[in-house]
C-alpha cells in the first residue's frame, strides 16, 4: 500500500488551504479584483469592495475553514476513540443534542429573544449545552465500573439521536410557522449567517482545539490496539476518554451552533486522510483539520456561486461533492488490494 509522507501531505494541504481561502475570498456576486486584497487588512474601510471583503467574505471564509477544521479533527478523534474508521461525532449524539438545544432556544426564546442582539449567542449556547448534555447522558449510560463500553456507547448514541429527533419534531409540531422556518433553516447548515461574532466564537474554540488534539495522537494510536493494551502502555485511558469526549462535544457543538448541521465533513475527511497518509493520529488529526477546512471552504464557495444570486445550503454541497469522491476512493482502494 502506497502512502504519502505525512509532512509532504500536510504541506500540500496547507498550500491548498491558502488557495481555497483566496478562491473563497475572491468569488461572489460582485467582482472584486485580486489587487484589493490588502484592503482586507486596512483598519478603515476604503470602499464598498473592501467592505464586502472585510464584513462579508472574510468572516464567512474564516467560519467555513474553522468549522471544517474543527469538525474534521473531532471526527478523526472520535474514529480513534471508538476504534471504528467510520465513526462520526454525531454518533455520540452531539449534533442531535445540539439541534435540540438550538430548537429549544428558538421555541422558548420566541421572536423577541431571537430578533435581538442576544439571539445568536443564545442559540449557540443552547446548541452547545444540548450537545454536551446529550454526550454526557450517552457517556454515563455506557460507563460502568469496568470502563466505557464502545458498543453500549454507540447504541446509547443511536437512542439519544432518535430521542433528540423526536423532541425536535415535537418542537416543530407546536411551533408556529416562523419558528418552524427558523428551526428548519438552522438545521440545514447555515454558513450564510457568517459574521464576525460567529467567526470569532468558532475560532476561540477551534484554534485551541486543533492545537491540543494532536497531542493526544500517541494515546489514540495506543487506543487503536485496544483499551487494555493502551492501559498497559501507560495511557490513563479513562481520563483520556473523558477529556476527548468533552473536547469533541465542545468542538462539534459550537460548530453546529454557528454553522448548522453540516453533515459529512467529520466522517469523510479523516477517512480520506487515513487512506492517504496512514492511521497515525499524530499526523492524521492536523491533516484532517487542514483538509476539512479546504473541503468546507470549497463547498461553501460553490454553494454561494453555483446558483448565484441564489444560495444553496452548504451541507447539500458537502454531501454532493464528498460522497462520490469517497466511493471512488473506496473502490480504488479495493482494486489495489485485489490487483
Amino acid at each position, binding site marked *: 500500500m502506497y502512502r504519502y509522507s505525512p509532512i509532504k501531505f500536510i504541506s500540500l494541504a496547507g498550500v491548498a488551504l491558502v488557495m481555497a481561502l483566496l478562491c473563497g475570498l475572491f468569488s461572489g456576486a*460582485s467582482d472584486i479584483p485580486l489587487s484589493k486584497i490588502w484592503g482586507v487588512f486596512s483598519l478603515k474601510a476604503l470602499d464598498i469592495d473592501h467592505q*464586502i471583503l472585510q464584513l462579508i467574505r472574510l468572516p464567512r471564509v474564516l467560519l467555513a475553514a474553522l468549522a471544517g477544521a474543527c469538525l474534521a479533527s473531532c471526527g478523526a478523534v472520535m474514529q480513534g476513540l471508538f476504534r471504528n474508521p467510520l465513526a462520526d461525532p454525531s454518533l455520540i449524539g452531539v449534533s442531535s443534542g445540539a439541534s435540540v438545544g438550538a430548537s429549544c432556544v428558538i421555541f422558548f426564546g420566541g*421572536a423577541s429573544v431571537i430578533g435581538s442582539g442576544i439571539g445568536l449567542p443564545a442559540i449557540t449556547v443552547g446548541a452547545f449545552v444540548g450537545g454536551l448534555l446529550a454526550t454526557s447522558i450517552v457517556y454515563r449510560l455506557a460507563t460502568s465500573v469496568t470502563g466505557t463500553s464502545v458498543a453500549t456507547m454507540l447504541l446509547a448514541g443511536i437512542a439519544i439521536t432518535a430521542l433528540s429527533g423526536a423532541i425536535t419534531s415535537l418542537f416543530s409540531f407546536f411551533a408556529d410557522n416562523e419558528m418552524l422556518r427558523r428551526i428548519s433553516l438552522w438545521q440545514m447548515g447555515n454558513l*450564510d*449567517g457568517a459574521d464576525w461574532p460567529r467567526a470569532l466564537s468558532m475560532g476561540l474554540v477551534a484554534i485551541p482545539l486543533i492545537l491540543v488534539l494532536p497531542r493526544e495522537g500517541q494515546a489514540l494510536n495506543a487506543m487503536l490496539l485496544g483499551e487494555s493494551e493502551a492501559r498497559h502502555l501507560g495511557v490513563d485511558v479513562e481520563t483520556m476518554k473523558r477529556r476527548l469526549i468533552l473536547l469533541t462535544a465542545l468542538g462539534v457543538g459550537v460548530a453546529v451552533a454557528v454553522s448548522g448541521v453540516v453533515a459529512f465533513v467529520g466522517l469523510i475527511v479523516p477517512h480520506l486522510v487515513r487512506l492517504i497518509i496512514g492511521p497515525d493520529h499524530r499526523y492524521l488529526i492536523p491533516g484532517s483539520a487542514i483538509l476539512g477546512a479546504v473541503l468546507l471552504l470549497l463547498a461553501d464557495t460553490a454553494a454561494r456561486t453555483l446558483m448565484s*444570486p*441564489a*444560495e444553496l445550503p452548504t451541507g447539500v454541497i458537502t454531501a454532493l461533492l464528498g460522497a462520490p469522491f469517497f466511493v471512488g476512493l473506496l473502490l480504488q482502494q479495493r482494486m489495489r488490494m485485489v490487483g
Partner: protein
Amino acid sequence: MSSQRLWHFVLFLFWLLLSSHLSADIHVEDDLGREITLSKPAQRVISLAPHLTEVVYAVGGGDHMVATVAWSDFPEEAKSLPVIGSNNKINYEALLAYKPDLVLVWGIGNGENIIKRLTSLGLNVFVNEPRKLGGIPKTLNKIGRLLGRELESEETIHQFQATLEGLQSKYQQVGKVSVYYQIWQSPLISFGGEHLVSDVLRLCGAQNIFSEVKPLVPRIGVESVLAADPEVIIVGQYTDVEVAFEHWRQWPQLRAVANKHLYKVDPYLLHRHTPRILQGAAQLCSAIDKAR
C-alpha cells in the same frame, strides 16, 4: 337479442349519457388543467389554504365553509371555522368527517402528496396555483362558479379589475425603480421573478432585482444585494422588521440606504393571493413611488 332491440338499447344508453352530461351543469378547469365536475353547486367546502378561505368569503360563499387549516384568519368569521390541519399536515379523518363536496387546495402550498391523497379518496379537488395578478380574478370566477355564486363573484371581480386598472394607469408611465424585496432576515430570503410579488412590483413600475432567479423563494447572499445596488429596499417580514433595517443601514453605500428608501409593507396583505392584495399593492406602490 334482435338487432332492433339492441339499437334501442344503444340509443337509450346514449340518452343516459347525454342527459347526465346536461344535468351536471358545473364544469371548471383547475390550475393543473384538470376538470372538476359538480352536479350542483358545492354546499360543503373545505379550504386548505388561508387565501382560498378568504376567496370563498370574497365570492359570498362563506356560509358553505365547513372547515379550513391553520392561519385562516380573514375575514373575522373564518377564525371560528374548525381547523383540520396546517398547510402540509392534514388530518384526513377529520376532513372526511365533514363530508365535503369540494376541497380547495393550494398547489405548491399543500403539495402534490396531499392532492394525490385527496383525489384517491374520491373527493372533488380544485387545485389553485396563482402566479400572476391576472390569475386572481380567474380564481374568483372559478370558485364562484363552483359555489354557484357567479353574481357575487362578478361583483368582486369587477371591483378588483377597477382597482387594478386604477393602479396600472397611475404607474404606467413612471420610471422604473429597482427593488429588493426581503421576506426573511436570517438567512436572507427574497422572491424570484415567478412569484406573485414580482408581478405586483411590475405593476408598481418597479423591477425585482432577483427577477431572473428561478426558485420562487430563494435564499440569497448579502453580496448579491450589494452588487445589484437596489434603489429601494422593501421589508415584507412578519417580524424583525427593525432588525432588517438595522442590518441594511450598515451599508451606507447602497443607494436605498443613502437615500433612506427602506420601507416595510404588510406581508399579510401582499403574500396572499386574494383581492386584498391590491390594498398591499397600493401600499407597496406608494412606498416605491417615494423613491422617484
